[in-house]
């Protein structure tokens, strides 16, 4: 469950940079970051954690049908999310709330989806190429590979211009690696050398099934069998996530073919609000990953660089503002008119839909006191 000798880590749990042969390749990406960028990593991680916790509360208060927590996985997501360039296309799983935020999706869209008001309908074109959440496990890896093949056919990649060449990054979890979809995408990605990064967040648990049950091989070694290089990173290290993803995306963008990153992280909470992890996980594991927390170590890092209390207080204030705003807007959400289920089946008026709508209206009206 823990890190291995192969795990790329740039930032220790004590918040110090790792300078070694293994990290020499990646540290230059960090050195290029401005102070503002480094601060933004922290800001995004803290704000999304507060949002995530409050969204879980909203679910427990009856406001959402379910919530899918990202607690503990902030570094893997924030680092890789910032690594993507504006022209890159991002295919999320269903837990990458902070990447949605980074790409300009109002978090209310996710709230609405998990309240049952929408199917997650945001237009990727209008949201910096952040594609829709995919609740079906692993399907998005096929979407991403197909899209990446399209990018190739359009000639929109590998022209030698890193500011316009496109790449694709797809997020999935350790549970999805057991889906055929993921293997199929790896086959096609390798065959066509797609401009694509497979970003696996190994959060150790596929609901209640541990990763050790799913794979006898460390997952970063699996793509090797498909002819795709794999690398394992400390997914709770936002700098490693940023640097290694950037390097992989650069390779993909320049025609170097697909890459695969296994980010070792941990789902600190439940898979969704519908399950109870205390039933299948032990406290020792939780303790290990609590010590490896992504935000704690990054705050140490920033403070060691001279960041003061004012900044951290500012971030807390932003998190409070955001959660208060989300709560206010969530409580103001209505429901979906029942007629919606008939309205969008066909683009044109349809006699069957009309008949069914009328039937339902009559049925509702048949109850004492009229329609509920």
């Amino acid at each position, binding site marked *: 469950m823990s890190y291995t000798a192969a795990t790329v880590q740039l930032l220790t749990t004590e918040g110090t940079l790792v300078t070694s042969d293994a990290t020499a390749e990646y540290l230059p990406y960090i050195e290029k970051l401005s102070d503002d960028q480094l601060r933004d990593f922290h800001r995004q991680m803290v704000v999304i954690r507060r949002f995530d916790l409050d969204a879980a509360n909203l679910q427990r208060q*009856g406001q959402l049908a379910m919530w899918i927590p990202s607690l503990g996985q902030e570094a893997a997501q924030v680092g890789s999310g910032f690594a993507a360039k504006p022209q890159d296309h991002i295919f999320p799983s269903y837990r990458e709330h902070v990447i949605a935020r980074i790409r300009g999706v109002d978090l209310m869209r996710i709230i609405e989806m998990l309240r049952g008001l929408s199917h997650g309908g945001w237009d990727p074109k209008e949201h910096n190429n952040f594609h829709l959440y995919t609740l079906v496990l692993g399907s998005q890896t096929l979407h991403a590979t197909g899209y990446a093949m399209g990018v190739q056919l359009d000639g929109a990649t590998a022209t030698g211009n890193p500011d316009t060449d496109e790449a694709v990054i797809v997020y999935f979890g350790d549970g999805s690696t057991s889906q055929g979809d993921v293997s199929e995408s790896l086959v096609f990605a390798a065959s066509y050398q797609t401009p694509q990064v497979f970003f696996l967040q190994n959060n150790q648990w596929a609901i209640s099934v541990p990763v050790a049950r799913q794979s006898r091989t460390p997952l970063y070694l699996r793509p090797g069998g498909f002819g795709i290089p794999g690398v394992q990173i400390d997914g709770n290290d936002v700098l490693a996530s940023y640097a290694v993803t950037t390097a992989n995306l650069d390779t993909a963008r320049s025609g170097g073919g697909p890459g695969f990153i296994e980010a070792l992280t941990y789902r600190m909470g439940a898979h969704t609000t519908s399950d109870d992890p205390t039933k299948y996980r032990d406290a020792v594991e939780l303790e290990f990953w609590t010590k490896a927390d992504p935000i704690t170590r990054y705050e140490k890092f920033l403070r060691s660089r001279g960041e003061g209390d004012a900044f951290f207080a500012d971030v807390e204030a932003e998190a409070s503002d955001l959660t208060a705003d989300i709560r206010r807007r969530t*409580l103001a959400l209505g429901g979906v008119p029942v007629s919606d289920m008939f309205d969008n089946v066909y683009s044109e008026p349809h006699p069957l839909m009309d008949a069914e709508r009328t039937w339902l209206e009559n049925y509702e009206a048949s109850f004492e006191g009229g329609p509920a």
Partner: protein
Amino acid sequence: MASSDFSLPDVGEGLTEAEIVAWKVKPGDTVEMNQILVEIETAKSLVELPSPFAGTVTALLVEEGQTVEVGTAIISVSSEGGVPTTPAEEATQVADAAASVTAPEEKSGAVLVGYGIAGHGVSRRRGANAAPAANPGAPAAKPRPASVPAAAASAIIAKPPIRKLAKDLGVELADVLATGLAGEITRDDVVRQASQASVFRNIQTPEWGTEREERIPVKGVRKAIASAMVQSAFTAPHVSVFVDIDATRTMEFVKRLKNSTDFAGVRVSPLLIIAKAVIWAVRRNPTVNSTWTEKEIIVRHYVNLGIAAATPRGLIVPNVKDAQELSLLDLAKSLEQLTITARDGRTQPSEMAGGTVTITNIGSYGMDTGTPIINPGEAAIVALGSIRQKPWVVDGQVLPRYVTTVGASFDHRIVDGDVASRFVADLASVLEEPALLLD
């Protein structure tokens, strides 16, 4: 000062009810937004509910231990002068499904989203033309037996539905013998534990009910037991055989034992002989002493001999562990001790767990015979009928003899008619000639 109610949400996907396990606040307490109010248990898990309001608790509307439906108001909180955080009318569309299952006394617009509850709601609404008498009224909260404390439950391996079943059946998981992988408690384990405690009950004659008819809703515990019993009945196909026996020599043997100095002070009855006979016959027909699992038949080469014992709380089936190791005297002592312990209501769960074959002594109620039901997890049960003098043909002459009927039921998945018959024939031969036990 506005007062707001918090209604039980569907915290899972499609849950319809939950039990209030423990309140974390009491009336008069000041609560903050998102402060934990209560721990509830659903069919899936234990869940803590955070407060959607800041304010002062004015009332807890549901007691601990009660199970209430999603949408039922469970707590009232008065807000402190500020704008109530309860959502307003714009949320009622979503609330529809939930509101229709909410008790009539509900005060505020509960906002609940979720799955699968609309169906219940519709069925509860009255048709416009229905007579008032048809009003089913408010859904009643169901009192439940004391729950398993959450802390104690953590060391036990059991899936949430099994935990719920155990709670519904009044079974303490800590008492259940786990037969699943890695010590997991299975559904069968819980059902077995429950059935051992409640196969039969002593009955007192109550007064006639005042109503001509009583309608008992088939739900909750009753529904769970019914489905478990139906499953059990369809799971183990019973086959029963019966044989009449001249047990005169057994009665003479019992009389001699009673008079022997070795057995002085020890209770001796025909049960002792049939117990010894069962152990002997098991050795000759081992498959009757086994357990069916879907993958294999586990044949026990030891006998934990279950004795159905009448107790003030009902019939229970404690067993004598490794009875095959015991001498006749020790077996007699064990049976006596087991009976006394059971009668005093002191039988420990461990004494009821792990039985391999069972004897039910229905003869002690004066019954000649009956079709016994196999103790779950076993493959055979023997019923010993009453032993009475009856006319019996001996060498062409009708003579008064001590006659009894031995019946036995077998799990036909494991035991075929030939083995069943041989086993019962062995029992019969011992009762007819106890000297065979010298074998």
